[in-house]
């Protein structure tokens, strides 16, 4: 395929420049939120909770917290990145450029995923100031971090095209993703749930992400690692197919 690499680089640089302009919003806000979680759940309440699977509670919630921030910020960054040009009308330039959906995705989603990985690393460093962190499988940790960032940035890109206004951009992360992350084992092991709710929880796709990510830290998982990885890849592929369809049909992009 004859790719327009200059276009990919232009979109990527443009989006990263937007992150630099909104550094406080992009990085500082999630870091402060995470620090608050550690103060409340790690130090204040966590000290009274017993270890889970041999891991102190403060350390146990680190992967879940990173995943929680990663999901919401990936969606938020990618959806805003593509929704803003639609809102201001500058999308005409992207639509009239000699590029296919591959370049558009590589640019917008690549930048959003990069921001998420930076954010994940920042939160990890912040967490290390509060609790002891041991990463059992660094390669797999990085792989889950990148795959999750890319998958949910793709999802955010879809959301940014689907949404008719900024309100809808906020609704999905706030009303769907955050509850799924909270109920997907961010702050507990699903083995602590009654059997019925364990089964119900398995329908929550975020469970697999958190479980796999936590395994890469502490070698303990609620579901098998292979299943976690497969589910992540399936979600990524579904998002890619939807985006391919959007560009093929021009859904909400081309009249």
């Amino acid at each position, binding site marked *: 395929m004859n790719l327009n690499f200059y276009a990919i680089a232009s979109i990527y640089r*443009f989006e990263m420049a*937007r992150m630099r302009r909104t550094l406080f919003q992009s990085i500082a806000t999630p870091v402060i939120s995470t620090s608050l979680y550690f103060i409340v759940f790690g130090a204040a309440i966590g000290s009274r909770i017993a270890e889970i699977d041999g891991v102190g509670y403060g350390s146990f919630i680190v992967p879940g917290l990173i995943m929680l921030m990663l999901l919401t910020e990936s969606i938020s960054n990618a959806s805003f990145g593509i929704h803003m040009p639609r809102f201001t009308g500058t999308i*005409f*330039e*992207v639509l009239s450029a*000699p590029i296919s959906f591959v370049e558009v995705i590589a640019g917008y989603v690549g930048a959003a995923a990069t921001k998420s990985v930076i954010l994940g690393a920042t939160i990890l460093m912040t967490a290390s100031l509060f609790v002891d962190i041991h990463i059992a499988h660094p390669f797999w940790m990085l792989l889950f971090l990148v795959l999750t960032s890319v998958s949910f940035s793709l999802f955010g890109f879809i959301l940014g095209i689907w949404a008719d206004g900024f309100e809808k951009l906020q609704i999905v992360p706030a009303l769907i993703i955050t509850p799924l992350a909270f109920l997907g084992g961010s702050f507990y092991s699903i083995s602590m749930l009654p059997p019925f709710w364990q089964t119900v929880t398995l329908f929550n796709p975020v469970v697999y992400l958190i479980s796999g990510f936590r395994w890469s830290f502490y070698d303990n998982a609620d579901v098998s690692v292979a299943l976690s990885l497969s589910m992540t890849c399936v979600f990524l592929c579904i998002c890619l197919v939807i985006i391919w369809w959007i560009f093929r049909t*021009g859904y909400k992009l081309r009249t």
Partner: protein
Amino acid sequence: MQDSAGTPIIRVEGLGKTYADGFEALKNINLDVYSGEIFALLGPNGAGKTTLINIICGITRPSGGRITVDGRDIIRDFRHTRSMIGLVPQELSTDMFESVWSTVSFSRGLFGRPADPQHIEKILRSLSLWNKKDSKIMTLSGGMKRRVLIAKALAHEPRILFLDEPTAGVDVELRKDMWQIVRDLRESGVTIILTTHYIEEAEMIADRIGVINHGEIIRVQEKHELMQELGRKQLVVHLHAPLARVPDSLESYALELADNGTRLVYTYETRAERTGITALLQQISDAGIRFHDIETSESSLEEIFVGLVKQVVPPASAVARGEVR
């Protein structure tokens, strides 16, 4: 100038566009645009001008027909055709928080060209934007934003430039600057297609005029030919004393009385071999009517345009004439 005998740089064949709600925006459009010309597309609001441009640029999907740019299909060879085209949209759609330099550089990269600071500088200087290069777009005036959009469209050195209402909402001074920019671009070999509400704009700078109405092209012609063919002249005779009615001896000239009978107005075809002016003036004198002044006026492109779009159904002969195939 255009090479009407050569291969068109843009060829539109049987183009149609029907929106999902059933509205037929374009109906069987056939049009050729030649390399190096300034082509003005005139039409009232909702005539289909922007839809046509958007389809050629790849923003809107056609319902039927075929378009080639530089001999290549705009859908199959979109990378080649789109890289040749620059578009200045009607709306002032800009990245408000970006600087002029970065947004123009972004456009160049987006269209597949490597960074070239010298070229960007040249464009910004030619558009009087150089001293604003580090300014955020949100701080610029409407006219300056319009220039930024032109700079963005030129950043990748296109061979074809679409200007959709380029002077809408800009002051007279800036409008003249824009016209000069357009002329300079044409001199550098860029083919320009512009839509405008200001008919005098087309009259001043266009080589050819296309008139579109209700989604149909009703006329495409060299500007001067169009004005000569459809233009009319009027001879106004200023009388010493008012007349109550036109004398019977002058009935064959279909004269009109104006200004309470103090002026006789004679309308004649510019193309006619004999205008009848000499004979008319002689017969006025013979009728004992004294006059102290005469003046002539020519219909403007605007009057021709208004006359054309008033036709509900264009005559088939008009569609088949000129460059409309």
